[in-house]
């Protein structure tokens, strides 16, 4: 139950130590912001077609023109929904990974999941032509996304095998193995870049920087189930990740089935990151900046942090995408450049302001 009367404000005083009401209010504000961003994303674009104008036409009995219909429903709508899903995935997998590793700087990029997905995508771009025609015909336009997802998934499985001994996952080993796997993926990707021809190099560059430009309803349909499934698992992780803040042994003593919880967390991250990287390439900083910002605002309680991350991650990605497709319109700037330009300095600012408080 959320009320907004002023007496609540006194409860927000830090001295109460209870940030649950504050967290709920931040979640509602984030939801509202996301709704605004969705409308804006449907309205803003190179063509000047506006959702509001189209709706007004429709309300006053006029037919919406074919051009408007195509722009709104076949170009902007899938792109917008994809942006929400990808932003939510990146932010939530960042938050889950950080909770799992008990480190506010952990990120799927860090444990090699993104790098593995990237290697898969690059393999598909450079060597996709060598696929037997029957397979190529079957996979079609999904070759790159599917390879990226497979790469991310295989990386996670490999990491898991390396770092799990007799049913216990060592977070330290997984982190170090992630660095090794990331470096290996990077090296193999580098070899493939050398082999690539000019056209492929251009594809690689755009994919590597990340973009929502290729969003279609079919791509959306490929990514959505996996992302939705991963996000749906997060409510079951929240309590466990909270307990894990005190360490694995203490979490177990608090009644959390730690090993099961870690398995679910790993699968969640693999699913969300793999699918997101597959359809949008390497979009950085969302998974670090959003959870970090939220932790400063509402604290580390994952019951609120995870949903708030999903909502705010979606908003940030939509906002970045609007910049990316309007700033040099009619051309497009890859969205990864925008998120890094916003996220990098912002992240440094957070670190600078809180270096006395944050023990990192």
């Amino acid at each position, binding site marked *: 139950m959320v009320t907004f009367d002023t007496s609540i404000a006194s409860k927000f005083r*830090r*001295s*109460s130590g209870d940030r649950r009401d504050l967290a709920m209010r931040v979640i509602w504000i984030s939801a509202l912001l996301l709704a605004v961003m969705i409308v804006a994303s449907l309205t803003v674009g190179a063509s000047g077609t506006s959702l509001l104008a189209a709706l007004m036409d429709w309300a006053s009995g006029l037919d919406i023109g074919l051009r408007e219909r195509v722009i709104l429903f076949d170009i902007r709508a899938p792109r917008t929904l994809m942006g929400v899903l990808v932003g939510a995935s990146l932010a939530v997998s960042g938050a889950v990974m950080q909770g799992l590793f008990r480190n506010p700087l952990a990120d799927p990029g860090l444990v090699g999941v993104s790098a593995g997905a990237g290697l898969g995508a690059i393999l598909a771009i450079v060597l996709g032509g060598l696929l037997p025609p029957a397979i190529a015909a079957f996979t079609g336009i999904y070759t790159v996304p599917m390879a990226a997802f497979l790469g991310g998934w295989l990386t996670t499985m490999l990491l898991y095998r390396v770092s799990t001994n007799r049913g216990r996952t060592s977070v330290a080993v997984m982190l170090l193995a992630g660095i090794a796997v990331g470096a290996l993926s990077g090296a193999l990707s580098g070899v493939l870049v050398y082999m690539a021809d000019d056209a492929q190099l251009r594809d690689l560059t755009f994919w590597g920087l990340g973009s929502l430009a290729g969003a279609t309803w079919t791509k959306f349909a490929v990514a959505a189930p996996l992302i939705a499934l991963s996000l749906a698992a997060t409510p079951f992780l929240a309590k466990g990740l909270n307990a894990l803040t005190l360490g694995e042994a203490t979490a*177990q*003593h608090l*009644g959390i*089935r730690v090993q099961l919880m870690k398995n679910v967390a790993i699968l969640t991250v693999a699913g969300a990151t793999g699918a997101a990287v597959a359809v949008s390439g390497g979009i950085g900083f969302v998974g670090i900046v959003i959870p970090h910002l939220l*932790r400063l605002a509402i604290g580390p309680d994952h019951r609120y942090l995870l949903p708030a991350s999903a909502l705010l991650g979606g908003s940030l990605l939509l906002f970045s995408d609007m910049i990316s497709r309007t700033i040099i319109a009619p051309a497009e700037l890859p969205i990864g450049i925008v998120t890094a330009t916003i996220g990098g300095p912002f992240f440094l600012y957070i670190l600078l302001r809180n270096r006395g408080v*944050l023990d990192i």
Partner: protein
Amino acid sequence: MIDAQKISVTLSGAPILNEVSFRAQAGQLTAVVGPNGSGKTTLLKAATGELPYSGVIDLDGRDIQDYSTADLAARRAVLPQAAALAFPFTVLEVVRLGLLSGLHAEDDDLPSRVLAHVGLAGFEGRFYHALSGGEQQRCQLARVLVQVWQPVRSGRSSWLFLDEPVSALDIGYQLEVMQIARDFVDKGGSVVAVMHDLNLTSMFADSVALLAGGRLLVQGDPTTVLTDQHLSAAYNCNVRVNVAPEQIGQVPFILPHMASLG
């Protein structure tokens, strides 16, 4: 009751515990004492299921391996020796983590009441990281107490496992925290505490298990275990055990010394 039979633990090839058998009765405060590296914490970690061991540990007549994680969390809470916190929770939020076992989840005021109980009234909004070592230790104690707040639940004694609960505390708080453990026991709860301070052990424990070199030297009530002979052998130094004045209970008090008293 906790009945541990022939517990052996080997960590990275080194034997830490060697066929240690010990018992902790429900409704008692059992202290585990012994010199550094004698295996006290290892024994506690085996008993809480944290470390793999050989032998059998029964809790209330059932092998602890047969309990589900949730069942164990409902019966016993564990205060670790050191508790690093990964993210900046407030004191109230840390103590609220004790509600995760679900026993008292409805009781929203419980964390604040327990904080007052451990001498941290008004600390709710402070950040855990900003507390002193002793305050952090009492904050963790409050979290553990919240988990098993009722000393007796459904007719069964609740268990507290405390690993050096007073190691970071001044003498005033040492007594206060030991008294909290004592109160818990007097209301029907059970406590197993790894202790360094033999005098506090002597004052508060019902039963003492003395470990040395990974073996159980002796277990019994404080007056039989805390003797010159046992302590000198275990700690490898001269120890003179005296009897405290009548006003404070005529318990043994222990004075290590360098002199040879013959």
